[in-house]
């Protein structure tokens, strides 16, 4: 933990305390709709969502289960396509992008942190963290290692590089997942309930880590959470209900 990002104390969210946010939009959603259709049922997961997230912003999304938060995060992360509407990343609409171009954008621009960590159990901590760099051309084995070590150092896990996920606690696993997201040096981190599987102490630790990333590295973070207290530590809180943005 000695090399962990400088812990940031929670600060009350006010409009005149924008932390690292700028007015440059990095993610823009316009009239996004997502409808899941089966033979008998049509479920509207997202209903005409309009959202702009600026560079360096830390946004939290809250809402009851099934309100479309994770669907929204999947769409922002280019893992899912909206039924209608426009998504822009850095001002460029991405709907017409090919599978290869979307994969490239995910790899270069976006880092993911999941509630259930999604680490590959058969790979060591170091190999897990290297994973996004494996899909990046021009990054050799040596550089991959160095960047993975650096990312693990940032989250205070440099002593656990050869461990396997099953040998780590929940908090440590989530820190590995954050290191994996950091290794690719993304502009945006999408975190889907990153503290959902952790106890309050571990949850605080992870939240502080994300805040530090936002403040020290200027990383844009969009976080889905059920935890009101943690949501209030972010710069902006967006509430969802039945697929629509309510605040």
């Amino acid at each position, binding site marked *: 933990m000695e090399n962990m990002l400088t812990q940031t104390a929670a600060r009350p969210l006010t409009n005149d305390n924008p932390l690292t946010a700028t007015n440059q939009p990095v993610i823009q959603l316009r009239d996004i709709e997502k409808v899941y259709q089966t033979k008998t049922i049509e479920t509207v997961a997202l209903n005409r969502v309009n959202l702009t997230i600026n560079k360096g912003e830390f946004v939290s999304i809250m809402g009851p289960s099934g309100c479309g938060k*994770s*669907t929204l995060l*999947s769409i922002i*992360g280019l*893992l*899912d396509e909206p039924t209608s509407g426009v998504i822009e990343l850095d001002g460029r609409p991405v709907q017409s992008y090919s*599978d*290869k171009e979307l*994969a*490239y954008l*995910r*790899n*270069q621009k976006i880092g*993911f942190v*999941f509630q*259930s960590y*999604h680490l*590959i159990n*058969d*790979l*060591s901590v170091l*190999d897990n963290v290297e*994973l*996004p760099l*494996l*899909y*990046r051309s021009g990054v050799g*084995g040596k550089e991959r290692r160095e960047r993975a070590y650096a990312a693990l150092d940032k989250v205070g896990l440099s002593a656990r590089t050869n461990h396997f996920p099953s040998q780590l606690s929940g908090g440590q696993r989530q820190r590995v997942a954050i290191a*994996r997201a950091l290794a*690719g040096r993304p502009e945006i981190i999408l975190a889907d309930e990153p503290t959902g599987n952790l106890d309050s102490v571990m949850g605080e630790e992870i939240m502080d880590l994300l805040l530090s990333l936002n403040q020290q590295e200027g990383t844009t973070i969009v976080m889905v959470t059920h935890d009101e207290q943690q949501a209030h530590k972010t710069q902006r809180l967006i509430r969802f209900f039945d697929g629509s943005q309510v605040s």
Partner: protein
Amino acid sequence: MIRHLFTLIWNRKRSNFLLMAEILLSFFVLFVVSVLLVSNYYNYRQPMGFSPDNVWEFDVDPGQDTTDRKATLRLLVQELQATPGVAAVTWTSSNTPFSFSNMNTDQFRYKDKKASLTEQYDADDDMVRVLNQKVVAGRWFDHRDDASTHHPVVINQKFAEDMFGGEAAVGKVLTNDKHDEQWQVVGVIEAYRSGNDFAANEPAIFNRRVLQDTARVGNNEQPILLVRVLPGSGAVLEQQLVRKIKQVTKGWDANVNTLEENRHDKMKFMLTPLIALGLVGLFLIINVALGLFGVLWYNINQRKSEIGLRRALGATSNGISRQFLGEMFVVTTLGVVGGLVLAMQFPLLGVFGFATPIYLTAMLLATILIFLLTAICAFQPSRIAAAIQPAVSLREE
């Protein structure tokens, strides 16, 4: 990426072990089947050493007639040779081409060297004309051998190479264990694979035995005649010859087959076990293929969230497909390497006694087949993996 695949497979070695073992065993079975197929094909491509077309085999049965068979037989051969449409007639032992009869011996010695098991045939002076054997050194039997002090023999090249190496074979004298008999090589023929189309080119030796040789021909000889007829001869000539046999022999029975018919019958007989073996091999391959397919399908279902994660981290759908094919390729390579180590023991230990190139060809064939099999089995599951929606699979866990 290759290092990553090896790391992944090494770390999953316990779950991959059975898959590798299955591939190793399948490779081994394919190798053994391939050895047999390749050796048969190799033999099939070798020269037969004679031409069976337009040759008819007459199995003559004297029945209860014991009166001077030799004289009757001499007369019969003369009469048949004189028949229009007949090119040549030979009187031979029962191990005619494509018959189910064979004679072999290991009695021959040259200096201190003992011959390996050698196929032995009786032949008269006309066999070479009937079977169109190709004499590559010396000559075939003729009247000059009547006064020979040693038994004259003709050998095939295989016997000559095995026994005399690079030395000229003609004129060499062979003996038996007790040195009480001697055979002199008068000629060498190219080959004589008379058993069937798939028979190996084994060492062969022809002993001269002519009907005039009263010392070597007994009265109870079973007369088997091979008759070369002119091309286009058919049933009319056949009936004419059978009539002539009955007429000359005063009632001996004669059974006629063409050597082509005998060849066809023998081919069917030889192909039956090969086809059975092939079917067993095919059945095994289908089972292995279904097993591999099932295991890969199961793996993909087990690894859906990993697939979703990899897509999220920047893998394309084709990249996922390539990864699964690549993993299968690595597992197959490891299984095949193990199989090759086992297979290498065959030529080293001379298990089937085939030439080394046959084993090497079989190894290559088995390797290609097993890679093809695993590629086919991995193709569909890897496409399924590629089609998995990352958002759905990430949510499933």
